[in-house]
């Protein structure tokens, strides 16, 4: 297969010079740039969804309606509940500061607040059993999972990540279509050469090898250019998002495997272009004698 993709110098002279002169490298650069940006966004969204879900997995709050003033007592009782690892009473000032973001300082001052206590469950704790124990330990106490509140957000992030996958596939399909058009154009441009080659006994595979090599070199050059530009844009974007990602506990939205996948995209795009070009040439030649 690799030998099939390559041509020796004498073979490569058959199509003349022309590398990087046609639209192919530019098309590949643009397509790869778009593909890498979309893929990076998709992977970051998927990463954010996973980080959010895992961060919320063991985080719960105990809410006691009209429990203001009894927070310390409730916290003490919760520490005795089997399955609860840590207990942190949320101060009134903290809750009011949160409300002020939406209601303003005057609006939030008069609102009666529940007693709110953040708890973290032990890894092997059964949330249902703990919820029952919490309700028994203090009248009116309710255990609420952070994951429930974040579920719509996590679902939205996962949907957007899936949408990114679809978009990457669509860009790949558009790239393949562009490659087919470019290849058929090249076939037309080199028709006289192909006729002579056929006349002296060249097989379709020999002719296809010339074109797929040309497309592979152009696609790789364009793809690497597009990927480098995308990497630059992503680096700048990541720098500006640094503060925002701190909300995920400093965890990176793109891990090493994500970056490897992004780095492989221009190579995959070039391989796709090469295979598509080969198929297009063989199909076109198959219609001739």
């Amino acid at each position: 297969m690799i030998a099939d993709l390559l041509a020796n110098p004498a073979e490569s002279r058959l199509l003349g010079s022309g590398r990087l002169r046609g639209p192919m490298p530019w098309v590949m650069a643009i397509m790869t740039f778009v593909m890498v940006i979309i893929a990076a966004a998709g992977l970051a969204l998927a990463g954010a969804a996973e980080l959010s879900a895992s961060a919320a997995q063991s985080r719960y709050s105990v809410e006691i309606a009209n429990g203001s003033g009894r927070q310390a007592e409730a916290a003490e009782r919760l520490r005795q509940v089997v399955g609860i690892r840590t207990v942190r009473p949320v101060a009134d000032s903290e809750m009011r500061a949160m409300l002020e973001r939406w209601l303003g300082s005057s609006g939030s001052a008069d609102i009666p607040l529940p007693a709110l206590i953040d708890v973290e469950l032990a890894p092997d704790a059964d949330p249902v059993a703990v919820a029952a124990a919490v309700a028994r330990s203090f009248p009116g106490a309710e255990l609420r999972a952070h994951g429930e509140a974040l579920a719509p957000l996590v679902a939205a992030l996962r949907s957007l990540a899936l949408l990114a996958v679809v978009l990457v596939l669509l860009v790949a399909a558009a790239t393949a279509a562009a490659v087919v058009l470019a290849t058929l154009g090249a076939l037309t441009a080199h028709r006289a050469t192909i006729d002579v080659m056929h006349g002296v006994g060249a097989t379709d595979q020999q002719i296809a090898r010339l074109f797929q090599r040309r497309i592979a070199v152009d696609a790789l050059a364009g793809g690497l250019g597009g990927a480098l530009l995308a990497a630059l844009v992503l680096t700048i974007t990541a720098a500006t998002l640094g503060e925002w990602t701190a909300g995920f506990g400093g965890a990176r939205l793109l891990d090493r495997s994500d970056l490897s996948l992004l780095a492989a995209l221009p190579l995959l795009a070039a391989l796709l272009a090469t295979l598509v070009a080969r198929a297009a040439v063989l199909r076109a030649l198959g219609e001739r004698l």
Partner: protein
Amino acid sequence: MSTIVEFDRVGLRYGVGAEILCDLDFRLSRGAFYFLTGPSGAGKTSLLKLLYLAQRPTRGRISLFNTDLADLPRSAFPALRRRIGVIYQDFRLIGHLSAFDNVALPLRIAGAREEDVDGPVREMLAWVGLSDRSSARPATLSGGEQQRVAIARAVIARPELLVADEPTGNVDAEMAKRILYLLGALNRLGTTIVIATHDLSLVAATPGAHLMRLDRGALVDPTGALRHPPTREARQ
């Protein structure tokens, strides 16, 4: 002498037009020398296209190298084409390749190693008197030089069948005589030669050659040599 080409009631038409060739029925002997003549539009080039496998007949049967082409898959054609040399009327040299690379093309297509290409190509260029123009592009060569490059390319792989369309059409009388001598030498090495030409002086200058005449797509074979080819001994 064995048969190298056999046409059996072969007809050819392009699209829905009238038949260009009709009921061609003949055999060519291996190692013989044939001239194909006839007025312009008689179908000479179309007949040659059938011979060098650039066209399939619309009816009838063609056998080449004892292989019936009727049911032959196109994947089998390259191997047959490598046994045929073609000199096109318009040369069909690849413009961006040097004379050397144009002549080397059949050897490289056949998979020859580069070290096995250089010697034969230089020898062939010397044979057609173009040793000093090996690196020249076709556009910088004269018509006669281009024709000789085309001839060198056609014969470099020592084909069993050589098909030439007006091979002396663009050269002076002296060069025409020289080309005919080269083709005669190739014929003596065993290659079957078919030359389409208007120049009957070539026929006269080639003793022992057979004459095929096409007229309005039909083959005239007054001597019967095509249907019943004489043996080499009889011709001598």
